[in-house]
């Protein structure tokens, strides 16, 4: 057969990004025209201040969770436990900071380690015990908050330690620190997946686990690593959220954030069935979801009905991305003039 045109273009980091970006742009355009002051930026106390900053700042935990979630989803799994893991990691940090004489770096390491450990537990269930990911992570989602409460004995903990408060509230180079953290994590993840063979292995395992196994890819290791990494991300997000409100409340922190993270991944163009993934897509997806929320605050949409526009926007973006939808649209356009 003679190819009509050569598809010799490798999959680049930006491919598939056009639709999520279009969705985000559309939303921003809406705000530009209808929401006064949405794009207003100013320098207050030496750092940037405005709705846009809020979006990237408050979006950081979702970006961070989303990066871990992207890899998990790319292997054909899902991690429902991230919200609960945030609670555990946050609790550990808050408890340690109140303990006099505990060194701060050790504290950070400890809470990240706890998150990673929780991820390892998920990975253990999924790989060694072959529990389906949805169920395996459901276990920790259900039980995780219980563990966090066990640690705090059900109490809320408040703290004022400047170093810990900085993690979620500080500014560097005029930007909120969480934003810098999520950028750093994006860089790290990209490096980890694209500068090593991990990305290839993740995609192949997600696409066809048996064939990958036969080709010598250790599917267990790959899956274990992504769950552990997702746990690490959840730990980091938990740290940020805890620090952000200078307290930990095991019941509320990260509640339903796992859904936002999954949405971010999907809106970003990574298929839930596994295989190809896009990190930048996830970032765009997270920003999209966050912009939506901020828009609704700005419009004073009551939070109980806020899910309605959110649902509609998500369906719209996913329709735009769906090849089937575009096919049908094209067919419709072709049919209508005649």
């Amino acid at each position, binding site marked *: 057969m003679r190819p009509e045109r050569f598809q010799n273009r490798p999959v680049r980091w930006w491919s598939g990004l056009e639709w999520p970006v279009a969705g985000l742009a559309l939303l921003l355009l809406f705000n530009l025209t209808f929401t*006064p*002051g949405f794009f*207003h930026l100013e320098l*207050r*106390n030496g750092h940037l*201040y*405005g*709705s846009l900053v*809020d979006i990237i700042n*408050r979006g950081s935990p979702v970006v961070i969770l989303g990066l871990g979630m992207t890899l998990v989803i790319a292997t054909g799994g899902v991690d429902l436990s991230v919200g609960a893991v945030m609670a555990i990691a946050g609790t550990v940090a808050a408890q340690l900071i109140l303990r006099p004489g505990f060194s701060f770096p050790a504290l950070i390491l400890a809470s990240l380690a706890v998150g990673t450990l929780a991820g390892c537990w998920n990975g253990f269930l999924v790989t060694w015990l072959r529990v389906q990911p949805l169920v395996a992570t459901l276990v920790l989602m259900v039980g995780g908050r219980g563990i966090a*409460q066990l640690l705090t*004995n*059900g*109490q*809320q903990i*408040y703290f004022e330690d400047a170093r810990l408060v900085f993690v979620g*509230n500080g500014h560097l180079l005029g930007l909120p620190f969480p934003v810098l953290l999520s950028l750093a994590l994006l860089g790290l993840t990209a490096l980890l997946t694209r500068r090593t063979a991990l990305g290839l292995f993740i995609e192949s395992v997600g696409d066809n686990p048996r064939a990958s196994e036969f080709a010598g890819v250790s599917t267990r290791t790959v899956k274990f690593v992504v769950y552990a990494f997702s746990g690490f991300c959840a730990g980091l997000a938990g740290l940020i*959220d805890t620090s*952000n*409100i*200078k*307290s930990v*409340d095991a*019941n*509320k*922190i990260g509640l339903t954030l796992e859904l936002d993270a999954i949405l971010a991944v999907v809106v970003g163009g990574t298929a839930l069935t596994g295989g190809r993934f896009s990190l930048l897509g996830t970032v765009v997806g997270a920003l999209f979801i966050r912009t939506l929320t*901020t828009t609704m*605050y*700005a419009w*004073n949409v*009551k*939070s*109980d009905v806020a899910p309605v526009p959110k649902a509609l926007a998500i369906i719209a973006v996913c329709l735009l991305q769906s090849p089937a939808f575009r096919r049908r649209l094209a067919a419709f356009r072709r049919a209508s003039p005649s």
Partner: protein
Amino acid sequence: GLFLASCGEEPAKTPGGAAAEAGGGAKKKQIVVGFSQIGAESGWRTANTESIQSEAKKRGIKLLFSDAQGKQENQINALRSFIAQGVDVIAFSPVIVSGWEPVLQEIKKAGIPVVLTDRAVDAKDDTLYATFIGSDFIEEGHRAGEWLAKATGGKAVIAELVGTPGAAPAIDRKKGFEEVLAKNPGMKIIKSQSGDFNRTKGKEVMEAFLKSPEAKQITALYAHNDDMALGAIQAIEEAGLKPGKDIVVVSIDGVRGAFQAMADGKLNCTVECNPLIGPQLFDAVEALLAKKTLPKRTGVMESVYEQSQAKEALPNRKY
């Protein structure tokens, strides 16, 4: 019928007597109470649970405690299993106000008296329960409103952080507060949004308020609970304003964090909502078993705290 409250030091013996009177011949029978709690969703709730559990232990009452994790279905199932276990009294804090008639009727059929705590139920037939012990959320809203009216001389542009949509405290605290506003034309709410009773959302929503074009007008903040107020205070600080001065902050609950914030001058007032109802609850239980009739409604000891009282009260706060 609350005479037992005065027994202070030696509560453990008296109830034994009361139970013995009630049970006639069965002298050694331990009182068994089934209590279904809403959940452990906040520090306030934990303090509430803790108060009930420790009081039961103190009085030698066997407490069957069940946690509904915020779900009415779970709570109904728990109540049913209390019937099956044949407890002497059933007490519970209903998750929501309506939807209790069928199960309360079952309990009534089984001849077990019911004590409601913390939240009331909406039942046409008020013989379905013996008494309700708890705060009056509307009254709390009133008090917050009245304090604010007094503090600002009846002139305030208010941002409101509402509780979880549909929850009784959120509905009633809004209602009580608005009743006060109706009497004070100088006070109006210009921003109102749910912060879901938690700090993160409280902070987030306040951030959004402060970025709206009307932000400059806001002079006061009314939060349906302390957690949201504490989150919002951070947002106010980050916007370069002084909470407690540029924006007057009033909230409800009276948790320790709120007292700390008042001591720091960032929060102006908190209306107490007292979770420590254990003693009152078991007084009522014992009275019921002694076949005494109770008033349908028993209030809880509560007050309003301002900055001036904060430093002094702080060390005594249990929750």
